[in-house]
C-alpha cells in the first residue's frame, strides 16, 4: 500500500465541440472520476441566475411568484460566475447581496398599449452589467429578427403592465436547478465488441440478418461483399443485451462478447447556454480540483479526518 501510486494520467479526446454541445472521450481513469465530473458539471459549476425579484406593478394574468419563478429559470450568460463572489461570502455588502461583486441588477418595464398581445421575453430584461445578459438563442444565420424574441416570460393584453427589479446572483445547481449550467451531462462506458467469427460463419445469411436486426440500434451490419457480420458503430450499443439474448435464442451462445471498458468513457455535455460547453467542462475540472485541494490542505486535523476519513489520509499520503 505504502508508496504505491494510483495516480494515472487521464486523457481527453474531443470529438465534437459546439457552443452548447460537447462530446469527448475520457480515457485511463475510473468511473468515480467520470461520475464526479458529471456530478460537478450538473450541480456545482456556478452560474448566475435571478434570485430576488421586487415587483412594482404586476397586472398580468400570472401571479407574482409564478413570474419570479420564470425569471429565475432564464439562463444568463455566466462567464463571470467563476470570478464572482457568492452573496453569502461577500464582504462588500454585508450579506444583503446587492453589491457589484456578488450581484447583477435587472430591470423590466413593459406595458401593453396595443390591442395585440404583447410577449414579454428575456429580451426585455435590462441588465446593469453588459457581460451578464439573458442568453441569446437566436441563430446568427437567421436574419429574421421577429422570430427570436428570447424566452417568453408572460403575455400581456391591452392595459396590462409589468414592472419589476430583479437581482441575479451566483449560485450552484445543488442549491437550485436554475443555477445548473448543464442541460444534460451523461457518459457511457465504451463497449468492446468481439464477434466469434467461427460461430458466426455457421449462421446462414438469413440468420445473420435476423441477428443483426435484433439490435434496436444499428450496431452491426452485414458486409455486402463478404457477407460477414461487422461492427458498424460500437458506441450505438446501449448495453441492452438484445443481441446476446438473440444469439442464445438462436442456440448460439457466445456468438458475440461485449465488455464495457471500465476505464474509458464517452461524455456528452449539453449546456443551457449560460456557459459554453467547453468552458463547462473546464470549470468542472477546476472545481473538482478545488474540492480535492480542500481535502489536501486541511492537513491532518481531527476535523478533516472526521470529514473526509480515509480519503483524507489517502490524499495526504498520495
Amino acid at each position, binding site marked *: 500500500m505504502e508508496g504505491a501510486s494510483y495516480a494515472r494520467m487521464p486523457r481527453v479526446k474531443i470529438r465534437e465541440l459546439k457552443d452548447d454541445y460537447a462530446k469527448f472521450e475520457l480515457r485511463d481513469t475510473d*468511473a*468515480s472520476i*467520470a*461520475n464526479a465530473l*458529471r*456530478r460537478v458539471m*450538473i*450541480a456545482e459549476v456556478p452560474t448566475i441566475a435571478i434570485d430576488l425579484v421586487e*415587483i412594482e406593478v*404586476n397586472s398580468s*394574468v400570472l*401571479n*407574482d*411568484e*409564478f413570474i419570479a*419563478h420564470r425569471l429565475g*429559470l432564464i439562463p444568463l450568460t455566466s462567464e463571470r460566475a467563476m470570478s464572482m463572489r457568492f452573496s453569502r461570502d461577500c464582504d462588500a455588502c454585508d450579506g444583503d447581496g446587492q453589491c457589484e461583486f456578488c450581484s447583477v441588477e435587472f430591470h423590466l418595464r413593459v406595458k401593453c398599449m396595443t390591442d395585440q398581445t404583447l410577449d414579454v421575453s428575456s429580451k426585455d430584461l435590462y441588465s446593469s452589467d453588459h457581460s451578464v445578459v439573458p442568453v441569446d438563442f437566436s441563430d446568427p444565420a437567421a436574419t429574421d429578427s421577429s422570430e427570436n424574441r428570447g424566452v417568453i416570460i408572460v403575455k400581456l393584453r391591452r392595459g396590462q403592465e409589468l414592472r419589476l427589479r430583479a437581482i441575479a446572483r451566483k449560485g450552484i*445547481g*445543488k442549491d*437550485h*436547478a*436554475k443555477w*445548473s449550467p448543464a442541460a*444534460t*451531462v*451523461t*457518459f*457511457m*462506458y465504451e463497449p468492446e465488441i468481439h464477434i466469434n467469427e467461427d460461430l458466426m460463419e455457421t449462421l446462414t445469411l438469413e440468420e445473420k440478418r435476423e441477428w443483426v436486426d435484433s439490435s*434496436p*440500434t*444499428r450496431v452491426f451490419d452485414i458486409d455486402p461483399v463478404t457477407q460477414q457480420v461487422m461492427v458498424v458503430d460500437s458506441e*450505438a450499443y*446501449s*448495453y*441492452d*443485451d*438484445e443481441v446476446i439474448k438473440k444469439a442464445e435464442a438462436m442456440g448460439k451462445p457466445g456468438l458475440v462478447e461485449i465488455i*464495457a471498458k471500465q476505464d474509458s468513457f464517452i461524455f*456528452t455535455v*449539453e449546456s443551457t447556454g449560460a456557459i459554453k460547453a467547453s468552458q463547462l467542462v473546464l470549470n468542472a475540472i477546476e472545481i473538482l480540483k478545488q474540492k480535492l485541494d480542500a481535502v489536501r490542505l486541511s492537513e491532518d486535523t481531527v476535523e478533516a479526518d472526521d470529514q473526509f476519513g480515509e480519503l483524507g489520509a489517502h490524499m495526504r499520503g498520495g
Partner: protein
Amino acid sequence: MTREALLPFECRQAKISYAGKMTIDVCFQYNDGPIIRENINFGQFPIMLQLSKSIVVLNIYLSSELVQSKLCNLRGADPQKLVSFKEEASEMGGYFILNGLERVIRLLILPKRNYPMSMVRNSFSDRREGYTDKAVVIRCVRADQSSLSIRLYYLRNGSARLGFWLRGREYLLPVGIVLKALIDTTDREIYVNLTSCYNEKYEKGKGAVGTQLVGERAKIILDELRDLALFTRLQCLEYIGDYSKNISSSEVLKAFRLVFKLVVGDTRSQRYLEEGNLPLVGLFIVAHYYYEVAEAVLKDCILVHLDNNFDKFNLLIFMLQKLFSLIDQTSVPDNPDSLQNHEVLLPGHLITLYLKEKLEDWLQKGTRLLMDEIEKKSTKFNFSDIVQVKKVMDKNSSKQVSTAVENMLKTGRLVTQSGLDLQQRAGYTVQAERLNFLRFISHFRAVHRGASFAGLRTTTVRKLLPELVGMTPSLPKIFLPGPPEALTVLLDGCVVGCIASSEVEKVVAHIRELKVSSAAVIPGDMEVGYVPLSMGGAYPGLYLFTSPSRFVRPVKNISIPSNGSENIELIGPFEQVFMEIRCPDGGDGGRKSSFPATHEEIHPTGMLSMAKQTMAFSSQTIQHRADQKLYHIQTPQTPIVRTSSYTKYNIDEFPTGTNAIVAVLAYTGYDMEDAMILNKSSVERGMFHGQIYQTETIDLTEQRGRSDRSSRIFRKSNVEKSAHPSIDSDGLPHVGQMIQPDEPYCSIYNEVTNSMHTFKRKGSEAVYVDYVAVDVKNKKNLQKVNIRFRHPRNPVIGDKFSSRHGQKGVCSQLWPDVDMPFSGTTGMRPDLIINPHAFPSRMTIAMLLESVAAKGGCLRGEFVDATPFRSSVKKDSEGNDSKSGSLVDDLGLLLREKGFNYHGLEVLYSGVYGTELTCEIFIGPVYYQRLRHMVSDKFQVRSTGTVDQVTRQPIKGRKRGGGIRFGEMERDSLLAHGAAYLLHDRLHTCSDYHIADVCSLCGSMLTTTVVQPQKRPVRQIGGLPPGRAVKKVACHACQTSKGMETVAMPYVFRYLAAELAAMNIKMTLKLSDGAEAGA
C-alpha cells in the same frame, strides 16, 4: 331607469343568488263572466345558468300560467361573449347560483312511470292480517309530472286490495269496488275481462299466462262485492264516498273526513259554490254528495295518468292479471333495482313539482283568507270587487313561493306535506365542486340511486346488472310456439288493445322501422318494450313508452336494409333487455342462429373515471371567482396518451397533470410502501407547482351586533398608523402583500364606539393577497369585501400524487438530480421513481402500457389514442389484419423503430457511483396528477398548548392546536412492549399530570383547603431571604392539616371524585408509602 343585467359572475362574487322576477297571471272568474287576469309578483325565482327554456309552464285549476321569467342572461352567448361576461369560454351552465355557491340538482333514480311492476316484498305482508308479500305497483305520472303510486296487494283469500296515497297516508280499498265504481259494468263483464287471458282449452303451460285459478279469484273478488251488497256503480261510489254508513271500512273513510272537513262538509263552501265564485284548487274537492267525493278520489288518487275511467278500468284489469300471474308463478317479479325498471328525476320536473305544490298552498291559503273575510261580515268586504279580493289575497305573501323554491335548491330539502310521491326528503341538490373540470362535469352525469339506498347494508342494490351495460341477461328464452294468443299492448300505461302473438314480431319490426325512418309518424325515441311470451319469464306484453325522463342510447338497426342511411335507433333500458344487439367486432357473440342480431352497437366506449381528488387547472376565470377554496396547478400539460372522451370533453382547456418521466425501480428505499421519490431539480423547474386560492368574505351587514350595523366602516386605525403595515388606509390589505400567520389583514372601525376590530389570518403558513373585490354598488361606504388569498403549494415531502391508474403515492424525498439514475445514451434522469412492488397485487397493467405508449408517442411526436375497446370495432377498409396480436406488440414495435428496447426497458447508471445498475429499468413518461391531499393541510404537532377546561387534558383538533389522541390501541401496543416509562410519559406526564393534596386521615381529596400562612416578620428582620412560603393545606373535614400528603395523579381522577361526590358517592383514598405497597 335601465338596470344593468345581473350576471352570474357578479352573483358568485357578491354571494347572492342568481334569480329573476317571476310573475304569474292569476285569473279570476265570476260565474261565467269574463276572466280577469291579474299579474302577481311571485318574488325572485332562481335561474339555472344558460338554460334556453323556462322551467315548465304550469296548468293548474286556475289556469294560471308561469309567465316566462327573465331567463339567464348568458343564454345564447358564444364563447367570446361568455369571456366578456367573465365566464369560462366553455361554460355549459346547468346549475344554479345560490348565495354565491354553485349547486346542481341531482339526477335521481325513480321507478319507471306508468308501468305496472310486480313485486315481492316482506313489508307487504306485514301491512295487515291476510296480506301476502306480493303486489303489483304502478307509479302513475300526470302530464304535469306529478306522480302518485298505486299498489295492488294480493290477499291470502284470493282477493286483492288497491292501496292509494292521500295526504301522506295509504288507504286500502277492495279492488272489486274500484272496478265497479270506475264504470257501469256487470259482474259478468269483469269476470270475462279478468279471465280473458286464460284459455281452458290449452291448459297450463301451453303459452297461456293465466291458469284456471284466475277464474276462482275473479269469483272471490265479485263475491266480496256481493257480501257488501254493492251491485251498482252508484252504490260503489257511495261506498267510497260515504263515511257514515260504512263502518266496516273505516280505514278509507278517515281519509275523506279529512278532505271533507276542509272543503266539503262545510256548508259555507257549498254556499260559495252555489254563488259560483270560489276559486278551487286541484286536490280539494267540493261536492254535494258522497259519490262526487268518490269520483274525485278516483280522478285524483287512482291511476292519475289516465283521464278516462274506461282506461283506468282496463289497466286495473291488466294489473290484476299480472298480479295473478305472479302468484301462479307464470311470470317472475320485476327487479326494482334493475335499470330496466328505472327512469330519472330531471331537475326541471322536480322544480315543477315543487312549484306546483307551493302554488297550490298559496291558493289554498288565499282561499282561506277570503273565506275568513267573508265570514266576518262586519266589514264592508265585497266579494265581487276584484280589487278588494286582491287586497285580501295580498295578505298571503306571494313571494314565499319563490323563496320556498330557492330554499329547496339551497338546502336540497323538500318542505312538503304530501311528500310528492318521492322516496326522500333531503339531498336533492349538491354543491358543484370545481376541484377540477372532470369532477365538475361528473356532477352533471352522475345519477343518484336514492338516499335510502346509500345506507343500505345489502349489496343487492349495488350489483352491476348486465342490462346496465347493455348486455342481455340470461332470461329463459323458451318461446313456446303456442296457439295464437293475444298480447296486451300498453301505451304509456294505457291499455290500447291486443295483438295476436303471431303478429307481434312483425308489428315490433314495423314500429322500429317507423322509428328509424325520418317520417315523424311516431317519436324517434319511443321505447318499444316487447316482452315475448315465455313460461316463468317477465310478464309478456307490448309496452310502448313515449314519456319523458327515460334513458335512451343509440344503436344501429341492422335488420332494416340501409339505404345509405345509418339507421340509428334510440333504444331504452326496458327494451334493450329483449333485443339482440351485437358487438361491432364482427363476431356473433355466441348467438344461436334462431335469434339473429337485429341491432349493432355503435362504439362501445366507456368514460374515464378517477380524478376526483386531483388538483388541476380548475378554472380559467379564477380572477372573477370567489370560491371558498380553489386548487390550481401552475404548469399543467396535456397527456400524451389520451382517450377519445378526453378530446370530446375538451379537457385540454382544463388539464389535470404533468407528463412525468417515471422510472420503476427500488432505488434508495425511500420509495417503499407506495412512497415515491421526486427529482428535486424537476420540482425546482416547476413540476407540480400549484396554489390554493381561498376567499374570505367580510360582510359588515352580517357582522354580529345589529344595533351598530350602519356605523361600521372599513378603515385603518388613526392611532397606531405604523402598527399593521399590511393594511392600507382603507382598512384592506395591499394586493400582492404577503401575510404571516396571526397577522391582521383587514380592519374595521366602529364610528359609534370608536373601536377598531381587525381580522387575523389563521393557519400556519404565510399567504399572499391575490385579489380584493369590493362591492361598489352599495351606498357610500363599502359593506362587503371579498379578499382572496393565495397559498403557494409547491411539492414538499408528504404531498400526494397519482397516475391516472389509481397508483397513488406520497412523496417521500425530493432527491437531488445528480443522485438520480441516468441513462448513458440519452442522459435522461427520471422525474419520479416508484417502487415495482406497487404493481403485482394491484395489476395496474395500464400504467405500464401507458408508459410504453407515451414513450413511443414522444419519440414520434404524436399523441397516442388509448380509447378502450377500440379493437372491438371492426377495422374498415385499411384494417388488413384486425387481429394484430396484443397492444404491447404494437407499442413495442414503435419503440424498436426508434432504437429503444421493445419492452420499454433501459440501462441506467447509478447517479451516485456512475456504475451500471444491474438490471434494466422500466422508464417512460406517465401522466401524473397532484392530489389535493397535502401535508401543509394535515400536519399536526404539539408540545404544550391549550388544555381542556374540565379534564386538563390536551384538547383535540388540528385547527385548535390540539394533540393527536394516544388511544386505547396505542396504549395496548406500549403495554405489550412493556414500555412502562413511555406509557407513563404519554398518558400521565404529557397529559393531565396533577399533584393533589389528599388527607390521609379521612382519605378525601376534595375537602382540602388552603390555609393562609401567617406572616412571620421575625424572619425578615433577620435579613435572611424569606424562605419558600410553604403552602399550608388543611383538611376541611378533619379540621387539621396533620394528615395531608401530596399524591401525583391524573387530573381526571380528581374530576371523577368530584363527579361521584355530586352523586353522593364518597371516594376515599388509602395512602401508603412505596415500601408498604411493594410488600
